[in-house]
């Protein structure tokens, strides 16, 4: 079994060969992961990908069937949740409804037998830190969703945990508040230098918040990297489809740096293509294709008909049916699209071979 090297600055939290099965279902099929000190690492995946199980294994609510979990020097694989020194923010905050906010925040300190006077001081401090001064005496239900979120965060960090776990904490907030809270969590995590593991199914959120993202599919981590890497160079077709919007064409590698799309049209490939005859996926982010003005030269050029337009503020998303019978989604700044691309309009667009990213198809 591969063991991570504990204690190195490589891993503050380390999982090595973690397997968890539920009957015939394998929820975690061998997870190796190291979260660096002070890093916010996001576990991103659709529901059923195993990310929640992974979180539970780290928190101690699930025991792995195989493998080890290490927190710094400590092997915590079999330690009960209460002995793990992990602060956790739950999906619906899980604030104790019968305790005031101050009592909620004091709870982990009381459990650690911190002296009363110090508890009072630390509760005050953390309330100020999360911008809830003077609300310590309220009951959770007397606070707004955003305030509850802050309180839950305060409770999770007040005792100086070794690791902060965030389990889809923004799901219950409306969009505007969510964005605000995301930034705030990010700011706090940075400021306190907390190592954090963040679980979400929301790829946009993951891109905004994370230092690194681990994308999970069917109990495995299929890609681990910075948001930019994940976005620009998804390792698999699944990642490509899951993160951000993309056009994904199935193609077969032909000779001369070309690939044939399913309808037989050839497109120039970027360098590093697999050998001739391989089946590949060609990923094209919607912002990459350009409308062609006269005299411009691009590797691939198509003309087509706009079948759908969606205004997104600064950008407009178009669905365009290309001549060879392909559909493509593009996103262009409002201006560049010209004044009046409407449904039914014809347009010509194109891209360079470097705009394409190759992923395995199967």
């Amino acid at each position, binding site marked *: 079994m591969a063991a991570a090297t504990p204690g190195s600055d490589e891993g503050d939290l380390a999982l090595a060969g973690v397997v968890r099965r539920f009957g015939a279902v394998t929820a975690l099929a061998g997870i190796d992961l190291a979260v660096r000190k002070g890093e916010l690492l996001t576990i991103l995946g659709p529901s059923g990908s195993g990310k929640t199980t992974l979180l539970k294994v780290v928190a*101690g609510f699930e025991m792995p069937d195989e493998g080890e979990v290490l927190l710094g020097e400590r092997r915590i694989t079999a330690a*009960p*949740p209460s002995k793990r020194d992990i602060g956790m923010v*739950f999906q*619906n905050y899980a604030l104790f409804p019968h305790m005031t906010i101050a009592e909620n925040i004091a*709870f982990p300190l009381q459990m650690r037998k911190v002296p009363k006077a110090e508890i009072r001081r630390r509760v005050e401090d953390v309330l100020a830190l999360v911008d809830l001064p003077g609300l310590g005496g309220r009951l959770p239900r007397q606070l707004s969703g955003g305030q509850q979120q802050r309180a839950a965060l305060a*409770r999770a960090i007040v005792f100086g945990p070794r690791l902060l776990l965030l389990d889809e904490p923004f799901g219950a907030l409306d969009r505007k508040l969510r964005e605000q809270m995301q930034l705030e969590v990010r700011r706090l995590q940075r400021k306190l230098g907390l190592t954090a593991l963040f679980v979400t199914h929301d790829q946009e959120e993951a891109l905004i918040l994370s230092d690194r993202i681990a994308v999970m599919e069917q109990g495995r981590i299929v890609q681990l990297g910075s948001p930019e890497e994940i976005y620009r160079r998804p390792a698999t077709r699944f990642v490509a489809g899951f993160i951000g919007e993309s056009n994904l064409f199935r193609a077969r590698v032909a000779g001369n740096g070309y690939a044939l799309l399913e309808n037989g049209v050839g497109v120039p490939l970027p360098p590093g293509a697999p050998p001739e005859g391989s089946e590949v996926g060609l990923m094209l982010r919607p912002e990459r294709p350009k409308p062609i003005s006269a005299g411009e030269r691009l590797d691939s050029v198509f003309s087509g008909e706009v079948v759908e337009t969606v205004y997104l503020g600064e950008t407009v998303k178009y669905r365009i049916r290309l001549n060879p019978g392909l559909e493509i989604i593009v996103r262009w700044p409002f201006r560049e699209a010209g004044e009046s691309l409407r449904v039914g309009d014809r347009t010509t667009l194109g891209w360079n071979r470097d705009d394409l990213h190759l992923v395995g198809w199967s």
Partner: protein
Amino acid sequence: MTAAVADRPAATATGTAIWWRNNRATALLLLAAAPALLFLLAFYLLPMMLLLAQSFEGGSLKAYEKALTDGLYVRVLIDTMLIAAYVSVICLALGYPVAYFLASTRPPWPTIGIIFVLLPFWTSILVRTYGWMILLGRNGIINRFLLDIGLLSDPLPLLNNLNGVLIGMVHVLLPYMVFPIYAVMRRVDPALIAAAEGLGAPGWQIFRRVYFPLTLPGVLAGVTLVYILSIGFFITPALLGGGKVIMIAVLIETQVRQFLNWGFAAALSAVLLAATLLVYVGLRRLFRSDLQWS
């Protein structure tokens, strides 16, 4: 705005319409509850008022004076409330774990457990009581077994005393404790327990600080139900207490049936009702600080 319009006398019609629009839900709810309210009024409140009126027969407070000063009735009233308190505490001690079991096991165990808890409900009170007699008597199954295996040399006094009364009453009333607690336990968010654990609480602290306080509304409901039902108990104490345990309902019944002295019976009932309400208010007070969140 709307309130201002409603206040203006000239706009009464509009005001009514607006009131109706704003309060339609409340009004409809009231309408829906009306049959039940009328039923309670006609078959509960009214007879109770009539009964209370009888306690002031001849415009005097004599009946009350007797009920409140006569050592016999005061003593029996206190005994009754004590017994009700014992029964409530025992029911809580037994019922809480049962409710926890029902709320936390996987199917089909909850269903099976609920059937067992409900069994006494489906058995007539006399059958139940005689069943206990067979089980608990001097020559009952329990005593004979303990004597036969040599654990005892004299039979345990399980029946025809306070023990018998408590056993019988707890048996009958246990469902009233289990179900309210069970209902509340089912609604406890498992994430809260996980949160407490994750925040460093050991098992018993989770129970003491989080789980138990969260189930307090059920506990209060159960204790109140059991206590109030206990106070009016009649047949079980008479049969299982061997006549040695006197509860107030027995004295009231004697006054009504044997001596047709409804005035005094009514006064005793009123005193009992007042004492019960007092205990109820006291219980609520006691729990209130812990329940304001619910």
